[in-house]
């Protein structure tokens, strides 16, 4: 038996291997990844390590001896060059061929590279090694420009500003967090960051990047260092070259299988079919872990559709953003302010006036309750929430 090959060593890949063993799989399991560090938690890179440095004992996904103990072959520093569907094997950088019975592609996503002149002068953050380099560079800078006002851009910007540097965030769209957050909440986040010392220039595209700053149509912004945080793209090249169906990630069905039987994709790279027949690709820890667990069950003989509630978080200095559900396609939003600004909860409703997502700023209790409210097939209407004055605890009891 050739066993199961998992391409990737991130959250989805490691959880899949662990869940396969938890479910009693006795297959040979091999993890292949280009990085040389033991599998680690990625969220601290932008939220912390890029500024504080990477500690010697960085957060591992599993203890160092986990893989050996569980008979999981972990091959680090091994890049896959190609997937050969007909021969059911992967080809490594040194031309070594490894056969598989089932293949799991968990290659994740990587920072989008903007096509701007001088982009080679900008830093982006993908790996632990990038965080090490960035931290070293930040040691000799005073002013920083961040291109992109999305989650990663703002996490880095907030962390760098907290360390006492002057930070300007340049966003091409009219507002920050445009693709990920309800406008009223995004405005509150921006205001809180401005109070904290961040400077924003929105509705402005960067025309060129130089070693001393970025130029826009409205003028030149001086910066000792330019960091690019303009979203991520799925790392789906291997799948594309092999002829799998792709397009904003690798297309998979409800059991996370690609267009080729026996080949699966999970995590950031997977564009999966939801229970309502739409295709979604999420970049989150929750999505990676939950898809990994669902797939492990399928590979162990219990065919399992992926149908977990999406949730996400972003720590930006003193701002904690937490999201439950999918606000994409929400037709009405009701924002409720908490006691201390910027504390807010935004309730998102679909066309049927059913609650479909809740986004919160600095309100963890509401986030936890909203995850409860949105799971288990429960339907909560706008009328019901209104009658409870948007107090979730009350709404959930009645």
């Amino acid at each position, binding site marked *: 038996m050739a066993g199961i090959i998992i391409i990737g060593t991130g959250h989805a890949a490691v959880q899949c291997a662990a869940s396969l063993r*938890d479910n009693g799989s006795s297959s040979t399991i091999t993890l292949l990844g280009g990085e040389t560090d033991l599998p680690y*938690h990625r*969220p*601290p890179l932008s939220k912390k390590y890029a500024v504080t440095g990477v500690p010697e*004992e960085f*957060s*591992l996904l*599993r*203890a160092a*001896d*986990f893989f050996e*103990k569980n008979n999981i072959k972990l091959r680090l520093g091994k890049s896959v060059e190609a997937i050969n569907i007909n021969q059911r094997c992967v080809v490594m950088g040194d031309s070594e061929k490894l056969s598989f019975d089932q293949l799991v592609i968990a290659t994740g996503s990587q920072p989008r590279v903007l096509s701007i002149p001088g982009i080679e002068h900008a830093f982006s953050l993908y790996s632990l090694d990038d965080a090490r380099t960035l931290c070293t560079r930040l040691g000799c800078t005073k002013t920083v420009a961040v291109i992109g006002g999305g989650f990663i851009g703002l996490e880095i910007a907030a962390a760098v500003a907290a360390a006492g540097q002057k930070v300007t965030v340049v966003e091409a769209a009219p507002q920050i967090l445009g693709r990920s957050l309800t406008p009223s909440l995004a405005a509150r986040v921006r205001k809180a960051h401005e109070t904290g010392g961040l400077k924003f220039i929105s509705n402005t595209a960067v025309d060129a990047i130089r070693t001393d700053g970025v130029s826009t149509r409205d003028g030149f912004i001086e910066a000792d260092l330019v960091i690019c945080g303009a979203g991520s793209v799925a790392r789906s090249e291997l799948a594309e070259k092999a002829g799998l169906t792709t397009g904003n990630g690798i297309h998979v069905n409800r059991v996370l299988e690609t267009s080729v039987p026996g080949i699966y994709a999970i995590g950031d790279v997977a564009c999966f079919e939801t229970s309502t027949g739409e295709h979604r690709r999420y970049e989150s*820890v*929750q999505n990676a*872990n939950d898809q990994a*667990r669902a797939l492990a069950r399928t590979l162990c003989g219990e065919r399992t559709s992926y149908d977990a509630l999406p*949730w996400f*978080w972003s*720590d930006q200095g003193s701002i904690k953003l*937490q999201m439950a559900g999918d606000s994409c396609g929400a037709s009405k939003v009701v924002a409720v302010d908490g006691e201390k600004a910027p504390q807010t909860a935004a309730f998102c409703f679909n066309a049927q006036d059913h609650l479909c997502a809740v986004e919160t700023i600095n309100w*963890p*209790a509401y986030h*936890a*309750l909203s*995850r*409860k409210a949105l799971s288990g097939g429960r339907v909560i209407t706008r009328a019901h929430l209104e009658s409870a004055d948007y107090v979730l605890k009350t709404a959930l009891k009645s």
Partner: protein
Amino acid sequence: MPQICFKQNDGSSVTVEANAGQTLMHEAMRHGIVGIIGECGGSCMCATCHIHLKDPGKFGLGGISEMEETMLELEGEDITADSRLACQIEITPQLDGLIVTVASTDD
């Protein structure tokens, strides 16, 4: 370094030398304590580092935060009055001798 004893679900115990300043979750994971997953990396977004603590007051540990309590209520199984999330507990020299029982889970 404080010594902390973890009681795992299979009945076995592991005593580790823990680094002050780290969280209980981080140290448990580093030593491969079974049942401590730490899926969200310590952001209090999941409850996969659920533990039970006896006499937390004796070791100078403060009370549970609202954030931690609601996350436990949401995701935790085997919840009791002494339930905590290991990611929310920072290790201090005072914790020497602490006994931690890993909460039982289905998966």
